[in-house]
């Protein structure tokens, strides 16, 4: 059977594993977007730019403060999260009562500004960021050479995804968040500071994007375009998974990673487009996404 596919089974397993690894990265990257949409009804087009800021933050830390990758994993999300909070307080707050469209357009504008500023300062070729030595190298699995860093990416992504899902869906804090967005007035009447929860949630979503950025820095070139290259994929993941479903985005991220990986083997030119084909199909059959709730 494998001979028919034109590729030996070993190579296929290698590609599937790569697909899963990329999928875990997509899941992590989409997680922040899913949180923000699911809880706040904001379509955060600036997600890609904030992811890029996370990678640049890691570079700053290394370049100017000599702080390594491990520090960056913690500090970059916090730093960029603070930026997110400021943006939310200044701009997004005013749009909550309006149609989704305006939130999308505003965040799109924010993305252009952020990307333009970074490109102005740093040019387009990007900056080097070295792989942390503890994670470099790899092992030969027989059917492929697996870099240690990629294994690390899967582990971290899965853990963070599950942790986030657990916090939002299964803890008291999470239930407050979910309630606050479903019925802010009522929840506020119970004494919960709803605007603050919303700000924290946005900041958390942004921090997740920045975290993904730090993860990407050693393997994808740290450049101002890095976010805009991925933003469309991230959107597709969230839409297909079901806007508002955290678990939906996570599972879809993995699935899309695998499908994209297979496309790269059999019809590589279409690897970007395969995601849109799936998005179109899903939207036509089940518009709220595979796991979504109607909004």
């Amino acid at each position, binding site marked *: 059977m494998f001979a028919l596919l034109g590729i030996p089974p070993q190579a296929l397993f290698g590609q599937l594993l790569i697909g899963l690894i990329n999928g875990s990265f997509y899941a992590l990257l989409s997680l922040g977007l899913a949180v923000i949409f699911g809880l706040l009804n904001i*379509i955060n087009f600036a997600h890609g730019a904030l992811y890029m800021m996370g990678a640049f933050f890691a570079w700053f830390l290394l370049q100017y403060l000599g702080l390594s990758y491990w520090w960056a994993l913690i500090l970059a999300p916090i730093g960029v999260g603070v930026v997110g909070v400021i943006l939310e307080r200044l*701009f997004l707050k*005013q*749009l909550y009562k*309006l*149609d*989704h*469209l*305006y939130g999308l*357009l*505003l965040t*799109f*504008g*924010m*993305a*252009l*500004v*952020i*990307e*333009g*500023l970074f*490109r*102005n300062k740093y040019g387009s070729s990007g900056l080097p960021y070295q792989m942390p030595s503890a994670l470099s190298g790899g092992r030969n699995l027989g059917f492929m050479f697996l870099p240690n860093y990629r294994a690390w990416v899967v582990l971290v992504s899965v853990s963070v995804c599950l942790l986030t899902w657990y916090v939002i869906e299964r803890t008291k804090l999470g239930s407050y968040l979910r309630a606050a967005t479903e019925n802010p007035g009522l929840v506020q009447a119970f004494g919960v500071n709803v605007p603050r929860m919303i700000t924290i949630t946005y900041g958390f979503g942004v921090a997740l994007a920045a975290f993904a950025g730090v993860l990407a820095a050693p393997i994808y070139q740290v450049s101002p375009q890095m976010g805009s290259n991925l933003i*469309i994929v991230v*959107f*597709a993941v969230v*839409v297909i998974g079901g*806007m508002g479903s955290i678990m939906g985005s996570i599972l879809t991220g993995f699935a899309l990673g695998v499908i994209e990986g297979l496309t790269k083997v059999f019809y590589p*030119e*279409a690897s*970007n*487009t395969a995601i*849109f*084909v799936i*998005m*179109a199909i899903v*939207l*036509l059959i089940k*518009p*709220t996404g595979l796991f979504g709730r109607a909004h």
Partner: protein
Amino acid sequence: MVDVTSNGSIAAPTTVVARHQYVAFAVMLALLVAAPFFVYPIFLMDALCFALFACAFNLLVGYAGLLSFGHAMFLGSAGYLSAHAAKVWGFPPELAIVTGTATAALLGLITGALAIRRQGIYFAMTTLALAQMIYFFCLEAKFTGGEDGIQRVPRGTLLGLFDLRDDLTLYWVVLAIFLFGFLLIYRTIHSPFGQVLKAIRENEPRAVSLGYKAEQYKLIAFVLSAALAGLAGSTKAIVFQLASLTDVNWPMSGEVVLMTLLGGLGTVFGPVAGAFIVVALENYLAQLGAWVTIVQGIIFIVCVLTFRRGVIGELGRLLKKSL
């Protein structure tokens, strides 16, 4: 659905053309007739094509309440077919433009039939997905020339009489095409069809309960919007003698949203003003390099936060008339 009510609502539903809109139209016409003697005609033609594109887009979003994120697919694919018709099949420009427009209409019918079933953000995402698939097709198809595009498209002679290589002659032709599209949209908005469309936008279940087949109306509006966007794209390919991937890619879909938003969503003259402003700005800012993106982003932000009615919308509010 788009929050259009903040734009200065359409006053009384009427099929009679309000007097102030006649005046506004006369002003616009006068400006456009005088312009090529003061301003570089190529720029004006570019702006006119985009103005038509934005008006077509506005028909769909402002009046039918359907926000499409994939409108570039109509602009771009029509441009390719028009360029190919003129260059390879040797069509005269008028037939080339018709070919392009027809292509866009057909594409609109197919994609519209698929996308109309969904509402709001899901409709938008469906159009985006379909547009990206069209982009991929354009990228891979041999006849489009990939990123080189179709180049050296002959301008030809219109109806065998008018040599379009002369920029001024071409300008009158493009102006005529724009006015045709603009008036067609205007007529549509102010017709019984247009009224039903507005009713559907305001309250679809009620319109359905009154016996109107909402899906059909929306589809017709979609096809019309697609065809006119295609008309803009076909004309643009002849003017610039080039059809390229730029016109079929998603940033172009974003650009038409910017133009319409800046000009005034749901107003008659808004998209025209928006298109002219954006094209002019991009030209002035071209010397600034990276700052173009930043300024565009700032415009988006400012428009959304404080200027939601757009230029013409605000003007209309000042004059207390709907424009």
